[in-house]
């Protein structure tokens, strides 16, 4: 009975197998470390998502909801003109906001990384941009109301400076207000990733391009923009998903002229009409997923973030 262990102990090469079990394989250690995260993501995100996918096929009426497998919710949702309208309007907002935040975000990032020479000032300026983020989105949204209203600060200043004779009406409770608010809230989401990408550009590349005779404009097009692609893509993903998923800003700032996909959803939830709400949610998720997947083709997200 003791022959085998003795044999193992005697032959050095075999001894390895006896003691290998003492050290746990690395992937087990990783799994133990990552299990809380996995637990939260699966139980509080993946399963609930699955849940509303399931519920989207259920039946409902005025008194309650019933497990079933029907496609009525989807049919109703996708054939209503209101749905198309609200998606188009949300998409329009998203595209406009994306363009504006990209413009601001790119130029600000470019300014901070390439034009500001002192690291201390750069950090300070970046902090200045980030500070408003520490206030809740709700407050920052309603902050626009006294600013843009007919008697608001902007109109007062504009009239005081003689720019207009009558207060401007379109400023508040309009699509303009919605877009302004989105830009205010989400530009930082562009500045951050783009600045990050730009900072990683090796300065020697720019110098080499300059040596080769490239004008600053060409350097921008040939060197800086391609190398900031990742940041632009990441920022775009963040801005798009935030706009498409918003329910508060549109409600507050559009004066009832526009709806957002999610605010309609929220109304249905308040009315306890879970199946159609769920169907709406699923359609939105698929839509957003397709857009994000499209944007992720530009950048290997995993490599960028885990690197």
């Amino acid at each position, binding site marked *: 009975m003791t022959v085998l262990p003795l044999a193992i102990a005697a032959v050095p*090469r075999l*001894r*390895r197998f006896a003691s290998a079990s003492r050290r746990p394989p690395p992937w087990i250690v990783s799994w133990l470390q990552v299990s809380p995260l996995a637990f939260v993501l699966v139980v509080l995100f993946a399963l609930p998502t699955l849940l509303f996918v399931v519920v989207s096929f259920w039946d409902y009426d005025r008194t309650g909801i019933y497990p079933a497998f029907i496609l009525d919710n989807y049919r109703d949702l996708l054939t209503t003109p209101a749905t198309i309208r609200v998606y188009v309007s949300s998409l329009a907002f998203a595209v406009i906001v994306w363009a504006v935040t990209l413009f601001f975000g790119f130029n600000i990032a470019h300014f901070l990384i390439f034009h500001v020479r002192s690291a201390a000032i750069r950090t300070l300026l970046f902090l200045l941009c980030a500070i408003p983020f520490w206030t809740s989105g709700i407050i920052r949204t309603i902050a626009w109301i006294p600013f843009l209203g007919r008697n608001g600060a902007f109109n007062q200043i504009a009239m005081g400076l003689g720019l207009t004779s009558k207060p401007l009406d379109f400023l508040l409770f309009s699509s303009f207000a919605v877009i302004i608010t989105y830009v205010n809230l989400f530009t930082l989401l562009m500045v951050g990733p783009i600045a990050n990408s730009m900072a990683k550009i090796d300065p020697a590349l720019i110098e080499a391009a300059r040596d080769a005779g490239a004008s600053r404009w060409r350097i921008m097009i040939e060197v800086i923009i391609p190398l900031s692609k990742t940041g632009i893509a990441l920022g775009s993903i963040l801005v798009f998903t935030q706009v498409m998923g918003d329910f508060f800003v549109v409600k507050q700032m559009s004066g009832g002229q526009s709806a957002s996909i999610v605010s309609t959803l929220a109304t249905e939830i308040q009315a306890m009409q879970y199946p159609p709400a769920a169907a709406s949610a699923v359609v939105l998720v698929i839509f957003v997923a397709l857009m994000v997947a499209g944007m992720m083709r530009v950048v290997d997200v995993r490599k960028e973030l885990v690197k």
Partner: protein
Amino acid sequence: MMRLATNQATQRTVVEPRFDVELVAVTKRYDRTVAVDAISLRIPRASYCCLLGPSGCGKTSTLRMIAGHEIVTDGDILIRDRNVTDLPTARRGTAMMFQNYALFPHLNCLDNVAFSLKMRGVGKAERHARAREFLELVEMAEFAPRLPAQLSGGQQQRIALARSLITEPQVLLLDEPLSALDPFLRVRMREELKRLQRELGITFIHVTHSQDEAMALADLMVVMDQGQIRQAGTPRQIFEAPANVFIARFIGGHNVLPGPRGLVAVRADRCRIGQAGNGAHSSGRVVAVEYQGPVVRVSLQMQSGEQAAALLPDNTYFAAPVQPGDPATLVWSEADAHPVTVS
């Protein structure tokens, strides 16, 4: 020859282990690549051993396997006749000095040095006292309260040394300890390391890619290439008689030329520019002339196709200077030509 000694604790006569470190057919495989290919080596007691070779030759992997930071794929490692192959790092009797010193940035020098004692549960007063002793040993006592970031490279290295030595290792492993230093500091630290090794009477295993460093320091020089040991011996043995073409080229200062019975290696400083006489010679053309102070290096392109060089004492050169483009004949004495194998 066995060495006998008396075990002080038991007053019994014991056989002392002959070697500090023994590698027995040690292999390291990463997926498909073989980084270290079944090497065997015996390092005598209290010797300074240098592992030398180009990048990727496996010297660092070997060092890390001895330390226990890499798992051995196959083979055994013995330290003073104790098989440590499966033992964790801390129980092997080794200590490692990392390439960038890896001093804990959040601890001051004193706490860095005292770290291993703290891990063992030694009380604060005692471990601080011990740490100060070792700081004295490396002449860094007044730096005790400083943080590593406040130290220069050379100073950091001494702290790293003290931190390793406080564990009273039987073998000290150094991973390219001098690479990060400027040339002047490098030479000074070299002398210190050698002195320390003599004083402490333990084995140092020092990985480097610099031949000069290895030749200056080593009692035992081990030249590696592609996971194998190509030659091991004293620096003099290797320099006087390189075993193969790789060694001759890597060590430097040798010409590899075709001889009557195969390739031979001849030391460049034993070659002269002269007339083709009865002795060994080879014709070629001067490609470059480099003044190096005490010697002048004349590079030649030989007719047989190789490149060669002659290291001439300055007087000899300036007595009969040659210029790039001149035809020249390399001459040497047969006694200085050593046959080398191709691989």
